């Protein structure tokens, strides 16, 4: 075995163990902040796997989108609403854990079976640095419709976020059910930090 091949193997083993252990940590740790940081680590390790497969553009996009945007927003949400509260114990927690563990084990067995029985064909040769151009060509020719549909989806999500954030466009506050103060945003001088909204 050459040095390059063994380096690749070592990288693969390290990255996959990081992914498996990190993903287990994300699910099993009770501290939600640790889970979120571990999720970032898992995303980074997946990007590493893409790099090993010669897909550097996909790897960079993975880091930018999943680590730089999704994971940062998850952390943001956790840290902005980080209330220290003791959760009420759920009845029958042990049974629930056993059941979900059983379902997961069954799914794992099924997937292992599929992996072992599928005759994996060797994929096409990796094209390396030309991949960026090829991705662009495909996105604007034969995958144009899914690409445009994804942008419509993002637009819908954005409009939804704006509607949720700008309560003045709604008659009723979606959080509390009270009648929304229509002029809250326009009246910049209104003290927003008092407990009772000014009447």
């Amino acid at each position, binding site marked *: 075995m050459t040095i390059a091949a063994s380096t690749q193997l070592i990288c693969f083993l390290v990255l996959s163990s990081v992914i498996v252990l990190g993903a287990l940590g994300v699910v099993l740790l009770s501290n939600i*902040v640790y889970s979120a940081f571990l999720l970032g680590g898992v995303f980074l390790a997946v990007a590493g796997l893409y790099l090993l497969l010669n897909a550097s553009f996909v790897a960079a996009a993975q*880091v930018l989108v999943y680590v*730089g945007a999704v994971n940062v927003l998850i952390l943001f949400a956790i*840290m902005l609403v980080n209330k220290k509260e003791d959760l009420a114990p759920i009845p029958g927690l042990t049974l629930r854990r056993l059941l979900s563990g059983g379902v997961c084990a069954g799914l794992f067995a099924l997937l292992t079976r599929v992996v072992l029985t599928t005759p994996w064909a060797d994929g096409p040769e990796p094209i*390396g*640095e030309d991949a960026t151009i090829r991705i662009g060509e495909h996105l604007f020719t034969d995958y144009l419709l899914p690409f445009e549909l994804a942008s419509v989806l993002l637009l819908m999500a954005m409009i939804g976020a704006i509607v949720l954030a700008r309560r003045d466009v709604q008659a009723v506050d979606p959080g509390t059910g009270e009648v929304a103060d229509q002029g809250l945003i326009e009246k910049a001088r209104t003290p927003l930090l008092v407990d009772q909204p000014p009447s």
Partner: protein
Amino acid sequence: MVTLLATSAPALVSPGLDLERSFSQALESFGLSEQAARLIWLPLPMLLVLVAAVVGVLVTVWLERKISAAVQQRIGPEYAGALGVLQPLADGLKLLVKEDIIPARADSLLFTLGPVLVVVPVILSWLIVPFGQNLLISNVGVGIFLWISLSSVQPIGLLMSGYASNNKYSLLGGLRAAAQSISYEIPLALAVLAVVMMSNSLSTVDIVDQQTGAGILSWNIWRQPVGFLIFWICALAECERLPFDLPEAEEELVAGYQTEYAGMKFALFYLGSYINLVLSALLVSVLYLGGWGFPLPVEWLAGWLGQSVDAPLVQVITGTTGIVMTVLKAYLLVFIAILLRWSTPRVRIDQLLDLGWKFLLPLALVNLLVTAALKLAFPVAFGG
């Protein structure tokens, strides 16, 4: 330094100057295999760039002290070395021997990991900075995109250290840093996209090559003046330099996410922010100021002197001027950044976010659209 992938290079390196090949051949003559020789070669350019980055930081810290002193009509550091040039070393040594304090109620694991996560992506980004045609660690195809995606990892480190400090000022500083970084990344990426569209490549070497035709006149700053301003403003915001240093605004947040840090961990933040500043300046010079290009094309100069571009001596001189020009342009920008820091007031957080989302983002989109239109209309001047 390293010479890799001389595929698209117009002037090929003559065999005697290819350090990697000479080094490998020397090792192979001792009986090592080709791969082992490559393995020994690989860390050397990385180490060189790391040392260059740290020395660049020391110079920048000294400049910051001296220029701030000049702006405020003081003398500045004077006793440590001639003109105080050893002052940054003294600062570093002081931080090195200070006690490493972890607050009692802090999360010690995340507290330690935070600064590391801030520094590592910045140093990794030096991978793509070219100092000459073949003078970079790796001419990766995704080039400038790699830098954008790596710089998006940094806010996680800031959030981590802000959270782990168990201090409300730290947490607010970390949240502000992440919000600022996310808002300014989008116009930054759009400004880069306009340049990438003109050079038809993400690779930093190709971006500079596209600007070499007619010396100073072919630099991207003339074709992308708006993009240059957007990029520079966003780069300052990403580096958390004044007027955008809200995450560590002293009057409001003590020192933001750095409040609880001391000793070497604080030094990592300090180092990271200055490495990031130098890196941003280098990338501005690569993207808009012609990278290693001399204001007059080297080919013309060599032609006037009756020398071939491929002659070894000319190549050594070209390489040296390339490094000098890159560093010179970068430090000119660092000088402007320092002058801005000591002469402009800090913006408020709402002004910062307004500027990013309501002004720079639409402007960057318009810039991208106009660049695309100009590229279709005048393919000769805007990269067909």
